[in-house]
């Protein structure tokens, strides 16, 4: 049998192998050619959106008058995978990382080993005027600007006016988590929170701890073995109490342990919706769903918004902060052009346009003056106010370890124990940072 097969398989495989070699050679030749000729090409690694960054790239390419051409390259969907790809490319010295859309919590990790090209002083001056404080803090590492703020995100408390009214809550006044829990219980409705094991869990924990006056990490700039955790403080325990209550009493719906931002929006839009903490994308998304006819028109009238709930009565809230900053890779061949392009990208006009078309709020307060914004986003002023109050997640080069540990120990929400979870999480993070434990 083997004798008969041999010549046959040899004949079958040869053309295929040849074709493979030809394709590989062709690809090598092509990539070698493209890099050289004409206008310098800047590659902008963008996070997925509704095409807004692509449009800005085209606009800035046109405005540059042939000085550069911006090409976009799409990063994966979730923030963690985006970081993975960028960190590996940066560590390997990839010179194609001219402009990167970066999630603020991961910036220290990239800034500490010098993976980011320094921001020129004049660019710093021009791009930091009128920028909300939280976004500016997120763009810095050890007191220096290492990225340029592009858009800033924050969560609002969205509520169904009918439910709030039935529960007797005065939404013109600041509300607390305890009040929301009580209202959802009395009305037999579900709260829209994000309980899945993912970055959204850390966003929630951080907002609760910060709103209660605490901090997850007290000295985020310290090296790994000197980091002090603030989880065991009263603020940490109170945060655990809120998450645990919502989980144990089933107030977040049966879907809570796998609920992300999108799922909680769908829950909120349904008959069981009551209150929800979520990013502003829910507004255009809900409007689009109503226009498409999949949701009833009366829903829009029933939706209200206000600042993120407080933890303790009488203490200000600290809403979550998100958004995207723009960084330049240290190995980029055209850092000057890249910063020139970034200055074009982050102009208040572009930020306003991006908000209107893609629903991502500007980091520059000047952009909020745009009449189009006021028309499309009636909650624009609330967003701006929320941004001023917002608190960033811990800015440490070890953010990935911290957030993964939090996600491991604080999910599912029903398993959180206010007495033990903050303590065991803090001990766990410490031992992971000291290299004594797997994550």
């Amino acid at each position, binding site marked *: *049998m*083997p*004798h008969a097969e*041999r010549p046959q398989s*040899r004949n079958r495989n040869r053309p295929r192998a040849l074709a493979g070699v030809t394709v590989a050679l062709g690809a090598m030749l092509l990539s070698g050619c493209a890099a050289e000729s004409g206008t310098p090409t800047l590659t902008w690694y963008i996070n997925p959106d509704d095409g807004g960054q692509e449009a800005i790239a085209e606009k800035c390419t046109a405005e540059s008058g042939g000085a550069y051409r911006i090409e976009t390259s799409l990063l994966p969907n979730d923030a*963690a995978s985006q970081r*993975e790809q960028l*960190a*590996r490319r940066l*560590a390997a010295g990839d010179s194609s990382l001219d402009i990167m859309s970066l999630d603020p919590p991961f910036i220290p*990790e*990239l800034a*500490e*080993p010098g*993976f980011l090209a320094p921001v020129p002083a004049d660019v710093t001056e021009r791009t930091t005027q009128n920028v909300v404080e939280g976004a500016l803090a997120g763009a810095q590492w050890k007191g220096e600007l290492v990225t340029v703020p592009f858009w800033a995100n924050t969560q609002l408390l969205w509520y169904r006016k009918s439910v709030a009214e039935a529960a007797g809550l005065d939404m013109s006044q600041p509300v607390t988590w305890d009040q929301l829990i009580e209202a959802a219980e009395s009305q037999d409705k579900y709260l829209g929170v994000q309980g*899945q*094991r993912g970055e959204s869990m850390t966003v929630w924990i951080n907002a609760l701890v910060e709103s209660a006056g605490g901090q997850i990490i007290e000295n985020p700039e310290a090296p790994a073995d000197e980091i002090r955790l603030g989880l065991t403080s009263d603020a940490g325990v109170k945060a655990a109490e809120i998450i645990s209550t919502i989980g144990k009493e089933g107030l977040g719906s*049966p*879907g*809570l*342990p*796998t609920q992300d931002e999108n*799922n909680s929006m*769908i829950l909120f839009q349904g008959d069981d919706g009551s209150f929800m903490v979520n990013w502003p994308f829910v507004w255009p998304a809900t409007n689009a769903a109503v226009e498409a006819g999949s949701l009833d028109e009366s829903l829009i009238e029933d939706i209200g918004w206000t600042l993120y709930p407080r933890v303790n009565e009488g203490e200000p809230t600290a809403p979550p902060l998100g958004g995207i900053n723009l960084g330049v890779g240290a190995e980029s061949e055209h850092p000057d052009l890249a910063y020139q392009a970034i200055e074009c990208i982050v102009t208040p006009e572009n930020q306003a346009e991006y908000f209107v078309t893609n629903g991502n709020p500007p980091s520059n307060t000047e952009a909020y003056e745009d009449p189009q914004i006021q028309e499309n986003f009636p909650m624009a002023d609330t967003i701006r106010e929320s941004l001023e109050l917002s608190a960033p997640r811990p800015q440490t*080069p070890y953010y*990935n*370890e911290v957030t*993964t540990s939090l996600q491991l120990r604080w*999910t*599912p929400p029903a398993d959180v124990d206010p007495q033990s979870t903050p303590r065991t999480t803090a001990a766990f993070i410490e031992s992971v940072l000291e*290299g*004594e*434990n*797997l*994550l």
Partner: protein
Amino acid sequence: MSTSVKTSSPKTEPRAPQQYSDRAKAERRLGWLLAGPAFVVMLAVTAYPILQAVFDSLFSYRLTAPDEREFIGLGNYAVILSDQVWWRDLGVTLLITVVTVVVELILGFALALVMHKALKSVRGLLRTAILVPYGIITVVSAFAWFYAFDINSGFVNNWFDWVPGIDPDLNWFAQGSTSLFVIMASEIWKTTPFISLLLLAGLAQVPDELTEAAEVDGATWWERMSRVVLPNMKAAIMVAVLFRALDAFRIFDNVFIMTNGAFGTEVLSLLAYRTSISRLEIGLGSAVSVLLFICVLLICFIAIKLFKVDLAGARGGK
């Protein structure tokens, strides 16, 4: 190729190569010539990364802190083996391996029998139908199963709410047991065709005369199966089990897509991925990968030495 040379000249003594006949020598040379290029490529793409991983595993090395790289000997292995995360993940991986391989073997054998006995006219159609799941990319099938069971978009809870324990509020991916059920079901659905094809090849090797003779002697169906068919296709069964066990032990896609390791569903490949790729801890992650590799070698060793799987025998060379 070299194995086929061996089996086609069973009379030569392995310890005395000078006794090869001219024909056997020519065959050996041709075998090396044919396998040589592939052998070199294999060395380049497998041996090199494996050695690099072994080397890296001896360092404390974080990709984002290249200056702090430090030789720590077997320190990474000590951390991993003393951590219950490793043992929990090993347990989950073994559970998935054993359950899926056993179920697949039973289902696969049944499918192979059906294909073997099917009328010639429908055999091709049947084989294609059975092979469809195996042709689907694992990530795609993982998403399909995920969305089918997902509490927000899934239809399973609605269709099967008459089954005790299933109701519209059941969140399959909120605890380990139900998540593992879906992960294993998806894995079984997708790879049973592979096992059934290997077993079909084994079934085809059993001479019809043997079963006919047994039938004439008055053996029942069960006796023919257990005394004639199964012993004659033992080699095919063991190869199928070994291949599937190695595959199942390295399961990644289904877990990554459906739970990403949440709620006690993490497997060893995912641990290696999270440590090397997510945490960028190259040293620690390499150590996990090396340990995973050793586990795979162990499975091979156990299968080949203890169960005496004859990899060459199943190729139809004898």
